Every structure is written in C-alpha cells, then in structure tokens.
C-alpha cells in the first residue's frame, strides 16, 4: 500500500494546503522539521520517554466484562486513553508538537480547543517544556467546558474567548490561524486534530498512531486475535486516525467512525459531515464540509463540544470514499444513554465524544459472536462533561 499523503499533502483528492501565502513557507519548514525529527533517534527517544514516564503510556486495554454480558454478543475491549495524563488522547499529539516547536526554536505555542481537552493538553505540554501558551476557545464552548477553561489557566496558559460566528471550535480555529499568520516567526500552532493544511493531518496522525500500535499488540495478547470491529468517534478525527492506523492493512477488521448526529438530520442540528456535507475547503484543507449553497460553513450542533465541527480530517474523507472506513451517526440522546451505561456497568465515565462511539457499539454488539472482539477507543474521560450532562438532563448540582 502506498503511504499517504503524497508529497503535496493529498489523500486521493482530499487534503492539500489552502492557506494564505504568509503561511506557506512556515508550513514547508514545519514539514521538513517534522521529517527530520522523526528520523532523529534522540527526538524519538525523548518523546517515547515522556509518553512513558509523564503520560503513563502504554495505556491499558480493559475488557468490559459486564458491558459485554449486558449487550450479549462480542467481547468489548476498551483502549483506555482516558487514563493518559490530562484525561484524553490529546496529550500524545500536544507533547509531540510542543517538542517539535522547541526543536524549531519557537518560544510560543498557540492552539484551538473545542471540548477543552486539547487546550488542556497543550497548556500542560507548554508548562512542562517552558513555552508560552495561548489557547483560543469559542465562548459557547467556554460555557460548556468551564472547568477546562480554569484548568488551562491554572497551567499558566492564557485563554482567549472567541465570540464570532457560532462561538465554537470552528471559530476558535479561525482565530488561531489569524494569530499564527501574525506571529508565525516566533510561534508554532499546535493543531489538535488531523485537520488543517499539510503537514498537520499527517503529523497529528503519526503522533496519535501510538494508540493503534499499542492496541494492536494488546488485543492480540488479550483476545488471541485481531478484533472484528474497531470503533472510534470522529470530530476532526485524531483519536480515530490514531487507532485505525494500525488496523488499516487488515481488511477483515471493520473500521467504524462515529459522527455526531445531534438533534436530527436537519442542517444546523448535527455535525454529521458524511451524512449532510459535501467536499469543500475549510481551514486549509479540501475535505467534506457542512456548508450552504454559497459555500459558507453551516452551523453545527452536538451535545459534545469536541465533535461540534463542520469539517473532518481529509484522510477520513479519503477513507470514506474508498470505503475502508464506514461512518455512522449517533444522536445526542443515544450518546447520553451510553454515557450513563458505561458509568454504571464498568465504573468508567467516558467523555461525551467517546460516548458516541460506545452508543454505536451498544447497537451492534449483539450481531457479533462471543468469540469476536470489538475494540473501542475510549478517547477521553467524562469528568469535564459532568456539569453539562447535569444541565442537559435538568439536574441541579
């Protein structure tokens, strides 16, 4: 199989580099620095050591015995990214990129965040490496994820609320890109997902591929075989790209990405790019975008801030068209039910993003035999969502 993306950053027709000229030379420089770093043994040693001694990798693989019995079908295994330092897979990429930023001589990092997990991860990595840090976050997301806003501030980051557009992740990325255009000489933009212009989709996938590499070994040991199904939620798509990367060559392993179906299929009520979107350019890449007839980005909705985004990583668009990965949608209500189910069945409170992946599993587990395994990427923990779940369900804390 040919390794994607190609030298222009394309995954089939998707990807590329649609940015203002000011960012082109810096992106070329970043691409080169990334290639050099990944070939440099000392860089890899330092990153591996941090992932082990600081993040707590490898994260465990947990057999969800009660959930499996309850659903009656496949054996369900959870890849426990929620046990990473800071509570989600985001730290894998944040550490990688911040190390790279330091290597490139950048003294300042910026990032966007939706659910706040990437923002917290970057603030953490910046504190560890002594970089100055600013995080952009939509004001609607600040409201939904106020705990994470305070966490970032405690970690020494400056959090800038973005009050434009829908006041969510998309608008935070716009503002982060504008900051980067302005301060590109001193600043590295730590993009949080497999989005944006080349080399970000490739680089973030590579930094997250540790999830898949570990899970591949762990499930073969625990289950004695590869899983029949691997499931992950897809906002931008970094946790999914991370876990899928190890299983892509095995055609017998079915891969499913779960998008936010929100309140329903009407445009504006969901974030299901593959159900309601069409190819276009947003945030530097050509991919599926939720848009109106004039090419303007459509509003999105999801109970989960991390999935509330109108575009998707270009490699996912490629996997969608090539049918290697199937993309499905799960509603707000189904995700909330799965949030409760895993909390009560396994004593694990998943992030609302992750709950979307679990909700899909609850629908299909029964159609698999008990000899088969389903692997779910438990991409993050749900502590950050407790207040929002209470609010949505009308519980006063």
């Amino acid at each position: 199989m040919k390794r994607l993306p190609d030298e222009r950053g394309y995954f089939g027709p998707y990807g590329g580099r649609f940015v203002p000229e000011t960012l082109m030379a810096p992106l070329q420089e970043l691409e080169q620095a990334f290639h050099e770093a990944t070939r440099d043994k000392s860089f890899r040693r330092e990153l591996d050591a941090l992932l082990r001694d600081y993040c707590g990798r490898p994260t465990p693989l947990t057999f969800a015995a009660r959930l499996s019995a309850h659903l009656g079908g496949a054996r369900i295994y959870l890849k426990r990214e929620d046990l990473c330092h800071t509570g989600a897979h985001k730290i894998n990429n944040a550490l990688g990129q911040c190390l790279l930023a330091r290597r490139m001589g950048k003294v300042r990092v910026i990032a966007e965040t939706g659910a706040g997990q990437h923002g917290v991860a970057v603030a953490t990595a910046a504190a560890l490496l002594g970089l100055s840090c600013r995080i952009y976050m939509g004001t609607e997301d600040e409201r939904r994820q106020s705990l994470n806003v305070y966490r970032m501030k405690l970690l020494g980051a400056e959090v800038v609320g973005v009050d434009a557009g829908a006041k969510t992740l998309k608008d935070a990325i716009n503002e982060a890109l504008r900051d980067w255009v302005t301060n590109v000489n001193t600043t590295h933009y730590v993009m949080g997902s497999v989005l944006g212009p080349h080399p970000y989709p490739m680089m973030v996938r590579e930094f997250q591929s540790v999830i898949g590499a570990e899970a591949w070994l762990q499930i073969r040991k625990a289950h004695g075989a590869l899983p029949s199904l691997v499931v992950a939620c897809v906002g931008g798509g970094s946790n999914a790209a991370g876990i899928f990367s190890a299983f892509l060559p095995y055609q017998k392993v079915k891969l499913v990405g779960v998008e936010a179906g929100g309140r329903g299929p009407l445009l504006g009520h969901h974030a299901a790019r593959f159900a309601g979107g069409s190819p276009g350019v947003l945030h530097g890449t050509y991919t599926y975008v939720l848009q109106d007839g004039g090419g303007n980005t459509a509003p999105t909705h999801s109970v989960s801030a991390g999935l509330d985004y109108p575009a998707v990583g270009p490699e996912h668009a490629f996997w969608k068209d090539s049918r290697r990965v199937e993309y499905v949608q799960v509603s707000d209500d189904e995700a909330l039910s799965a949030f409760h189910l895993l909390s009560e069945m396994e004593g694990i409170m998943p992030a609302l993003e992750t709950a979307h992946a679990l909700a899909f599993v609850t629908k299909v587990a029964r159609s698999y035999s008990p000899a088969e395994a389903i692997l779910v990427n438990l991409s993050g923990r749900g502590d950050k969502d407790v207040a929002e779940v209470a609010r949505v369900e009308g519980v006063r804390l």
Partner: protein
Amino acid sequence: MSSRLETAFRRAAKEKRAAFIAYITAGDPSPARTLELLRALERGGADIVELGVPFSDPIADGPINCAAAERALAAGTTLTGVLQTVRELRFASSLPVVLFSYANPILAYGLSRFAADAATAGVDGVLVTDVPAEEAGPYYQAFRRVGVELIPMLAPTSTRARVKQVKKLAESFVYFVSHTGVTGPQAQLPVELEDQVRLVRKLAGKRVAVGFGVAKPEQVSRVAKVADGVVVGSAIVARIAEIGDRPELFGEIQRFVQPLRAATRRF
C-alpha cells in the same frame, strides 16, 4: 487589445503615480448599495477596485473586514449577486474590477462556471486568498481560458523560490502583503517594506501592488514611492461601517478616498 488592468497601471505610471486600488466588501451594508459604492470609489479616483466576496470563515482578515463579511452575508449577499453587480457596473464604467475571495465560495459555485460567469460579467482579475501557487493550477487554467487574471499573492515570509514560482502565474501584477498578519490598519508598516517590494519586482518580473495594513495617506505616499499599486481596504470598510446605510454614504466615501488617491503621486 490591452486589458483594463494593464491600461490602469500604464495610465497611473504615465501620471507619475502608483495605481490606487480601493477595496470594499461586496454587500456591505447591503447588496443594493455596492454598485453605487463602486461608482463613488471611481469618482474618488480609484484606478482599480477590489471587491471582497464575503465568506463565513475569512482566516486572512482582521476584525474590520470580518465584521463587514458578516454584515454582507446577513444582508443576503451571494457570489451570483456580486457578479450581477459587476455586470451592472459594466454598463457605464470600464473601472477594472478584481474579486478578492476565498476558495470555497468559488468551489461551491463551480470553478469553471464561475470563471465563465466572471468573464461575462466583466471581472478583470481574481485573487483567491487561500489558494497559494501550489494549489493554483486548476484556478489558473479555468481563469486563463476565459481571459480573467489570477492574481498571485506574495508575503514577507515568501522565499526567493516562491517569488520566482509566481512569475508564471502572474499577468499584469502580483499582490504583496505588506506585513505578516491579517488585513486591517497598521500603525506602522515594516521598515523592510521598500527592500522587499524591490526584490519581489526583480525576482517576479512583474508589477507589484502592496496591500494589507495600508490605511493613511502618509502610508499610501510611502508605499507609492516603490510600488506600482497601493491597496487600501479596511480603512474604507471601517468608514462605511461608521456611516452606515444612509444617503450620504456615497458622497462621504468619495471624499474619504480622494486624499488617499492624491497620496499615490510620486514627487
């Protein structure tokens, strides 16, 4: 036959000044006002107008142009409507028009359909902010086929190799972004600006228009000494926002741009 853009640059050069390029966002304050605003800019002395196509996610724009795009979209501006305005302008005027757009409104319209309709409407050039040389191939071909110029952009971060690369794409001019940053008035333009403009002209072998951040007559005057064209955008857009949708808007804008145009003269 030389193009309207060529003619405008030649006329300005003959008059010993840089071409004055005035930017406004189409549809701000409302689509019905854009035609009359273009006329006001022409009466105020604009040699070329740059018409911004409003887009929901303008990553190269600062707060002033972002707010204008939001107003324009809220007022129902579409790319179809923008082309219609240019068509109407052409009944009475040969003022060169350059559209300033992001890729996605053009892709949603359909690239070759857009190129054909833009040419028919009388658009002279198109600047696609988020389409750098590497991605420009399909745009260049579609526009060239119908005689519309693709105007390449260069920035202070552009390497020498990148500057040379746009030589093949450019026709009457290249657009040089004055500073690393988004659109919007700058208190100070970079000290290296003059050297950079000279280098770009030498390496690209084309006329150079300078934009982003140029707001005041003193700045126009400084840029005009080295550049072939000077773009003023956000300052005009801010003035439009300040006045709002009132009958005196057109006269006020004409008066506002006159000193900017006067400052393009090289003494």
